């Protein structure tokens, strides 16, 4: 099997060995679940419950109110304590439903299907929509919106993204290794729902275990498993499409425009759950790791579980934490409050000691060109940075600031430790406002 490469990218220390081989542990449902109405890209769902209401596991508590939106379900059974803004992983307080778990884990009637592959495309779409499934790779784009946007287009390839390229994270790795048949089933269902002709599962070559298992499970079906180079950001949608299909999604465009759709392996798993068991998206696999996590591991966590609780389940901290991340070290969000809940987009919780959290003094740019070489969007980050520092937004746009995929490779590689991405992000927000 040949390894598929793409231009740009970096090779950070992966540190995946810490948790890669640790089987997923099921975490008990939290005592208090905090469910933000936005856990995805798009508009907030509209709460369907109020203080004092009784809810069951899987019951819908937030309904779709816009074309780009996803429904939200209760991960526990119990009593609604509040419907109010609560801090979330992205730093804002967002309207959330707070539920006190009654410990009964009473489940709604989930309406399972013995052989979901028999469902029609429309039925699968319905189930994906009502299960509130969003991209579980971290971006959180509602899966049904992706499928609908491609409705009137011919889709040649469905790529199932198993290129978990962020350091430390092994959640997708475990999903592929342990929930292999569900991933394959989910892939088939997604293909049927979107009318895709061919399914390709793309896995980074540093996960031979997953490649072997998926290849075996795919059997004689038309699913192809391909090996992608171990490089960050191999899992980035447009880069993956270019690498796997040699098709280039136009700037500002979407993958369906080149006849491709991409869904994460976790998303495929969630689709299988929804169609087979009728189970909405109320839990996900989260990697808990970092130098001060006592017992790092992979956990199946009910959404709404506070970070604190998940960290405790991993043995807690061995030293004072200096930084806690939601997601990986390249794109993850730094947290200041560990009461924030796990939501659909949280791929991992990483905690680091002071030793690992360095502050850098930027030095003058020595024009080494490394930022240009590693930029997967083929930009000149050093140029855009300079324009941004000088407030030259038009020039920044001309140099492609809006095409930045926010991967952070430029800042990562810069030997002068310049905060390139920081400035480029600023330029993006300034340009977007004009």
């Amino acid at each position, binding site marked *: 099997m040949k390894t598929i490469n793409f231009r740009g990218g*970096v090779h*950070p220390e992966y540190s995946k060995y810490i948790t890669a081989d640790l089987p997923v542990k099921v975490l008990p449902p939290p005592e208090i679940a905090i469910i933000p109405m936005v856990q995805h890209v798009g508009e907030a769902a509209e709460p369907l419950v109020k203080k004092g209401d009784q809810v069951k596991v899987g019951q819908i508590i937030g309904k779709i109110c816009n074309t780009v939106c996803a429904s939200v379900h209760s991960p526990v059974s119990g009593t609604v304590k509040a419907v109010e803004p609560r801090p979330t992983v992205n730093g804002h307080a967002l309207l959330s439903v707070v539920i006190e778990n009654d410990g009964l884990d009473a489940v709604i009637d989930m309406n399972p299907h013995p052989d979901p592959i028999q469902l029609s495309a429309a039925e699968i779409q319905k189930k994906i929509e009502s299960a509130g499934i969003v991209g579980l790779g971290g971006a959180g784009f509602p899966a049904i919106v992706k499928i609908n946007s491609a409705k009137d*287009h011919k889709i*040649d390839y469905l790529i199932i993204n198993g290129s978990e390229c962020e350091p430390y994270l092994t959640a997708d790795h475990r999903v592929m290794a342990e929930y292999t048949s569900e991933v394959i089933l989910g892939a088939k269902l997604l293909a049927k729902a979107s009318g895709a002709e061919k399914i390709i599962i793309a896995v980074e070559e540093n996960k031979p275990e997953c490649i072997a298992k998926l290849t075996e499970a795919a059997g004689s079906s038309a699913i192809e498993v391909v090996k992608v180079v171990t490089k960050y950001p191999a899992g980035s949608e*447009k880069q993956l499409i*270019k690498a796997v299909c040699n098709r*280039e999604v*136009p*700037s500002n*465009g979407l993958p369906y*425009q*080149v*006849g491709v759709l991409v869904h994460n392996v976790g998303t495929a798993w969630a689709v299988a759950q929804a169609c087979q068991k009728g189970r909405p998206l109320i839990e996900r696999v989260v990697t808990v790791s970092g130098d001060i996590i006592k017992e790092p591991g992979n956990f199946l966590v009910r959404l709404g579980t506070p970070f604190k609780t998940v*960290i*405790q389940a991993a043995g807690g901290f061995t030293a*004072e*934490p*200096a*930084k806690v991340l939601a997601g990986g*070290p*390249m*794109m*993850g*969000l*730094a*947290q*200041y*409050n*560990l*009461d924030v809940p796990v939501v659909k987009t949280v791929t991992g919780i990483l905690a*680091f000691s002071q030793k690992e959290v*360095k502050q850098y003094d930027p*030095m*003058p*740019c*020595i*024009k*080494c*060109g490394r930022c*240009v*070489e590693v930029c*997967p*969007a*083929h930009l*000149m980050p*050093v140029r855009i940075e300079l324009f941004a520092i000088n407030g030259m937004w038009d020039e920044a746009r001309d*140099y*492609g600031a809006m*095409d930045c995929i926010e991967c*952070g490779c430029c*800042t*990562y*590689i*810069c*030997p*002068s*430790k310049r905060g390139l*991405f*920081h400035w480029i*992000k600023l330029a993006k927000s300034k340009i977007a406002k004009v």
Partner: protein
Amino acid sequence: MEGSRLVISLSPHIRDKDTTQKIMFTVVLALIPVWAAATYFFGFNSIRLVLLSSITAVAAEAVIMVIRRQPVTAVLDGSALVTGMLLGLSLPPSLPSWMAVLGAVVAIVVGKQVFGGLGSNPFNPALVGRAFLVASFSKAMTTWTAPFTDTVTAATPLINQNAVSYSELFFGTTAGSLGETSALAILLGGIFLFYRGVLDYRIPVGFLGSAAVLMFLFGEDPIFHLLSGSLLLGAVFMATDMVTTPITPKGRWIFGIGCGVILVLIRLWGSLPEGLTYSILLMNAATPLINRWTRPRIFGQGVKTHE
């Protein structure tokens, strides 16, 4: 589980281990074999000139830092040391000490600091210093001594082409500037730089390749030209200076090839036997333009959809 002291910062949260300081000291390390060879062939003169030039360059940088009210610790970035060593190694062995000192001061002050210091200079500072010395003291800058002697003046291979063999050129037992005679030592340093990811192969390959091809086309001996004079030293250590060369991969090809073309023109038709200094300085001047011309095509721009 106290959360209040957690650091909040924008991603990415990890950085590559390489730093600008490490890059500079990698170049210093790579120059050690070159200096060692120079000392083997030219003895005390090599130690005298390279040390003087290096110490002066670092001292001049420190003084300017004080004048600019910047932390003097900036000299620890190693860039002034690289400039000083490179200048020293490009001097003829018999050059008077005070000229080396003056050259190093000019390199740092005029070549680098008047433009704003590290990263802002358009021209390779060591070559600015060298160009100044050649223009001011052309006699002393073109008086060569034979290896293993202090006094016997000798012609460099470029002036007296038939007197030397390839192996003499390769190992360095010829007359010339301190660091330029031993191709072996320069290649060792270059391979080390490449291996450490500090040297982009495009520039030396473009430079040496285009020079060799052109020399061959004009009926000259390409191998002789590659090995003689300061071409190899310049192609490996001076034309690859990050600050003064293009930042795009394509631009680096153009830079290297441009250097080679200019060098050949000067060597064959110019009034100077050597063309290295000016070939690189001219291409340094063209670098901003090259960067503009070789802007990479942005991912997804100008592509068609499949409909």
